[in-house]
């Protein structure tokens, strides 16, 4: 791990237990929500990947995975974005995203827009084959076990739809979180039901989305936990935003990577970035 940086040195207590990976070159696609709203998730991702034995690079020329265009039906727009994502990331051994929905976009949907361009479709498939969602990658590929992380309190877990249904992300975050000292799980009723975010859906059909997230918030409050954890910023922003609108400041929403990298508690929404 030649290019270990100061940031991870500060987290040396999280010792590395890595079995399958030796110096794999990982390209980190931070995603636009992490880039603009919650950079600490990006740094947490780097920390965890390095602890798991990967060499992490963050290509500077990255933007968006193309979901807004794809889900709006703009195939040409999606292709334009996909071209440069493929070019930027196809050389890596693994491409990792701290989001099930963006990872699923690259893994499952890029190939769909290249039906008439076999050359690009093959490149899209090649990229899809090496693309993973962060939390499942850490467990399934790196066999990573966090060690020495502590956080006092209780958490409840929201399973984001794309990760849960398209990428089988369910056990992995729970398994890793179970190693966090002092942290206790409280089950969430309807844990895998959509929170109503849905990307452009939540602004196009704001009122339906509101009805859905209101119900999610009811369940989150009923779980009576200190932390709401998940693996997708979109869902976390949606649920946290609704909690705050309803005046509930007791529950802290965090990306699982932040907890595992020892960056918690940093309240989503608090202007505490350094």
């Amino acid at each position, binding site marked *: 791990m030649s290019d270990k940086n100061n940031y991870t040195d500060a987290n040396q207590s999280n010792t590395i237990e890595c079995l399958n990976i030796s110096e794999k070159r990982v390209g980190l696609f931070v995603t636009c929500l992490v880039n603009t709203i919650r950079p600490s998730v990006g740094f947490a991702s780097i920390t965890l990947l390095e602890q798991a034995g990967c060499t992490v690079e963050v290509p500077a020329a990255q933007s968006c995975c193309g979901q807004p265009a794809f889900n709006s039906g703009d195939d040409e727009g999606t292709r334009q974005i996909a071209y*440069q994502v493929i070019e930027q990331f196809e050389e890596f051994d693994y491409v990792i995203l701290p989001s099930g929905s963006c990872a699923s976009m690259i893994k499952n949907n890029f190939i*769909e827009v290249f039906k008439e361009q076999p050359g690009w479709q093959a490149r899209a498939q090649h990229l899809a084959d090496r693309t993973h969602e962060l939390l499942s990658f850490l467990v399934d590929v790196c066999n990573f076990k966090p060690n020495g992380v502590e956080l006092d309190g209780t958490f409840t877990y929201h399973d984001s739809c794309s990760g849960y249904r398209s990428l089988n992300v369910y056990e992995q975050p729970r398994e890793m979180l179970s190693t966090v000292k002092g942290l206790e799980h409280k089950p969430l009723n309807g844990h895998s039901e959509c929170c109503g975010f849905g990307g452009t859906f939540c602004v196009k059909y704001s009122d*339906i989305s509101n009805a859905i997230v209101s119900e999610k918030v009811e369940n989150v409050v009923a779980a009576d936990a200190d932390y709401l954890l998940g693996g997708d910023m979109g869902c976390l922003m949606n649920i946290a935003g609704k909690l*705050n609108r309803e005046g509930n400041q007791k529950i802290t929403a965090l990306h699982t990577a932040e907890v595992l990298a020892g960056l918690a508690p940093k309240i989503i929404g608090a202007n505490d970035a350094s």
Partner: protein
Amino acid sequence: MQANKPENFTQNVTDALAQPDLKMIIRRTTDKAEAKRSDAIANFPEFEKARAQGQKVKDHTIKHMEHYLAEFEKNALAQGTIVHWASTAEEASKIVLDICREHKAKKVTRSKSMLGEEIGLTHAFDNSEMERIETDLAEHIIQLAGDPPSHIIWPAMHRSREDVVKLFREFHSDPTYSEEITDLVRSARRDLRTKFLTSDIGISGSNFLLADSGSSCTVTNEGNAELTITPPKVHIVTAGIEKLVPSMAHAIPLLRLLTRSATGADITQYITFHNGPKRKNDADGPEECHIVLVDNGRTKMLAEGMEEMLRCIRCGACMNHCVVYKHIGGHAYGSVYPGPMGSVLTPHLQSLEVANKQTHACTMNGRCEDVCPVNIPLPKLLRSLRAQSWEKKYEPLTNRFVVKFFGVLAKRPQLFQLFSSCSLIFMKAFSRNGWIKYMPFTSGWTRNRDLIEPETTTFMHQYKKMKKSESGGS
């Protein structure tokens, strides 16, 4: 209750969300349906196998549609059934009414059929000189109430027990004064029994059409299909051409999937195979039998690459598990077919221009596909309809502009990063105590929830700075 129109979807949604009890009313049915289905699947270890088999049967039949339609027609004719072909809903409903008029029918009994609703039979009869009698209990309730169906399996799920008590007291000849469900059912039974026996024509739908015998299969719990079909002199079946399967053996895995996915039952009370008119030594049965095979957009779906949707066996599992359906209910969709399957079907039955908004009212969470007994990739199909809407420019201009603008940025990463940094400055200006309550251009979000205040600079900015100081420092 007037039927909503699909083109008024946005208004329909607003109206639905304003109904205080709607969510509770829907949940009382869908929650139970979800739990019962999940139990049934847990007790059906061959589920995945049956699902793959069911899909295979459907795909095979759809691929060889012409062959099996011809085989079905030949065998139905051999049984003495008169076969009609209808390419549109209007044509289909006219064929049915013409047959009824030819027999000078005064009363027609009908067992529940969504295809009948699709081709507008209910309205056609209500605008005619004939009396239409719905014999399915739920259809009976909504007929009395004058409502359109709100679900394909439980069309009266939007009506409460109190509503039913009121309706039965008002309309039944010998009404009950009890509010017990068994007494209410008895009241309906008393009313319907005489009508079954005095009906001139019985009209049914079909769950499966068997090509190798020319027979039609109905699946019910109340026995009303049998009573609709047997006593009258004439029986008319209306069925979509996608109901076709090669044989009874092929219908079996689909039946096992259908009942479990729809109501969570291993089997329904009645599964009947109807084999044309009464034969020489038969004790009862209709003297004349017609079947109207309806296309109404189905072959077009096949031609347009939507063949996967033709697998649909109308179990309703997709809507029971749809987070949007559960909040807005069936009526908001403005179509006979609500929920995910309806949002794919309606653009083909009516037009994409009137029903494109429904295709966007989906979070793409994938639960519908997960529970579909014949593996229909509903989110993928909805998205392909969105792609068609995009090409035909049905999308509102502002949506197109935002997506295009974002796209222009996203394919130029440097510009994208610059825009991200600028938007942070803009967002900061509207932040108070870590949250944004309102900000221009984000009202879709802030209308209902707060927006998290971002960190001061983007990840990329912080990362570059960190890398620079690292290389400078070492």
